[in-house]
């Protein structure tokens, strides 16, 4: 699971290049950094405000891309911090600390990948797909409704599911149901095949993905979320219950974890935002 990027994390002041709604409930932030940075899909950064606005803890967001000196994120407004983030104008400064955590392993010769992304769980999988995706892989994205789908980011190779149907852009369609139901449907067409699952999204979705993989004996990697203090392994705040009995950290052992190593029963009890949907 390691696949560390060439360079270590940096702590720096970034300048907001763009920040705005991408689709219903999903914002995109582009942040210019003082020097170039590398990242591997699945890694995240801790973002914070400066001066009097500084929050006690940074906010972990997955890195979507690094392009032309700017690092990009997708986020939904979940509480105080992200709602203040949504109000930040281009030119403003933010504290950037990243890239942090492990990452999705790059392509190997194993079976094709089944990518399951839910809502703002998209960045790790989109980045992976962009770098390593192959024709044989299946990339699925799920949202509540068509207007919550960032169509412009998703190439036609992405299949889309929505909880409730509605208007889709010309030439694009959406399956009505959960992203896991869509996976079931698509997998039924290729019954002979083995898959490796990569999943990132809300906890119930991760749970369903892990169950699906376990039932068929496939491997499954999930990107987990936990409340974070530091993001770099020193506070032991972001623990995820391990099947082995103790804990994994979301920020150092993760955020990419093998679903088989997680104690899903205990994990449920600790959802950072009960009922939340990121």
């Amino acid at each position, binding site marked *: 699971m390691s696949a560390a990027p060439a360079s270590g994390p*940096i702590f720096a002041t970034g300048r907001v290049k763009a920040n705005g709604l991408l689709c219903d409930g999903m914002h995109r932030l582009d942040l210019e950094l003082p020097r170039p940075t590398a990242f591997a899909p699945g890694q995240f950064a801790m973002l914070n405000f400066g001066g009097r606005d500084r*929050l006690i803890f940074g906010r972990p967001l997955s890195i979507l891309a690094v392009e032309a000196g700017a690092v990009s994120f997708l986020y939904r407004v979940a509480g105080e911090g992200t709602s203040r983030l949504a109000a930040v104008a281009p030119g403003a400064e933010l504290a950037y600390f990243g890239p942090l955590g492990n990452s999705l392993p790059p392509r190997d010769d194993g079976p094709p990948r089944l990518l399951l992304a839910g809502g703002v769980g998209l960045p790790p999988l989109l980045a992976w797909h962009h770098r390593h995706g192959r024709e044989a892989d299946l990339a699925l994205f799920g949202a509540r409704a068509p207007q919550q789908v960032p169509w412009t980011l998703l190439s036609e190779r992405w299949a889309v599911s929505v909880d409730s149907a509605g208007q889709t852009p010309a030439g694009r369609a959406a399956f009505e149901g959960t992203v896991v139901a869509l996976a079931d449907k698509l997998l039924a067409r290729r019954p002979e095949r083995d898959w490796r699952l990569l999943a990132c999204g809300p906890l119930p979705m991760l749970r369903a993905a892990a169950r699906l993989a376990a039932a068929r004996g496939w491997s499954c990697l999930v990107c987990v979320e936990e409340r974070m203090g530091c993001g770099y392994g*020193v506070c*032991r705040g972001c623990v995820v219950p391990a099947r082995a009995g103790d804990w994994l950290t979301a920020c150092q052992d993760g955020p990419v974890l093998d679903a088989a190593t997680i104690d899903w029963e205990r994990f449920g009890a600790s959802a950072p935002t009960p009922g939340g949907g990121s």
Partner: protein
Amino acid sequence: MSATPAWFALDVGAPWRLGSRVLPGRIWTASGCFGYGLDGHDIRHEQFGSPYAGLGCVVTKTITPQARAGNPQPRLCELPHGALNSIGLENVGLSSFLADKLPELAVRGVPFLVSLAGTQPDDFGAMAAALAAVAGELPNWHGVELNLSCPNVAKGGVDFGTDPRTVETCCAAARACLPARVVLAKLTPNVARIVPLAEAARRGGADGVTAINSLIGLEVDLRTGRPVLPRRSGGYTGPGVQPVALAKVDEIVRETGMPVVGVGGIAGADDALRFFALGAAAVQVGTAQLRDPFTAAMIARMLAPAGCRP
């Protein structure tokens, strides 16, 4: 950031004596807020280089005789003016610390104190002895900080830190095994009078005290009406506890004259200056070190004598 005030004459980056050791500086990181001193070595900052640059000491996460799994999640809760934590002293345990962490600490050369906790006074002696046996040759190992905030099973679960006799016993036990290293007693603020605890630490042979450990606090999740943390209350730290920390440090300094390492809500040079103004010998950065691993290094740089300032 304002310039250093005229009354401030300390060189926080100069070597200074604490007990029988010479420590390289007065800006430290607090226990539990910088791991085992090993997790920041590949992090970089344009201005401050390494997070370890200029640090006087890293106090490790508290080590217990056996590994501890700690508390269920969520373990952290951000507050408007600080944080609540309920890590539950999760740590790798002494033997794993000695086997896996010490060698790397030796290589890294970062000055450190080991924070120790136990569930009975004897634990402190035993752990100190084991440390001395394994780490005794390490020049960057300066001693121990006794975290006296756990329940004392030998005394029916009363916190070590609230009973002067127990504080004295624990300090004496560690002191006996560490004649030539620093022994600090880290005191809890959750008491009516902290001075008797500091005096007890001195009677037990401690070279000084660290003040303060976290306050006890609670946060309610308004959506559910229930406490955010599964164990209801947790350790309250960060800016909101600073006035309390300053009051405790002031009491100890003025009533005992002991060396005091001040900690509580320090996030910038001004915060550190408040503690030094009251006579603190050194300061530690806790919660703020989580948000920004360069906080302590930045403060050390900011408070360096004018000649050395960037």
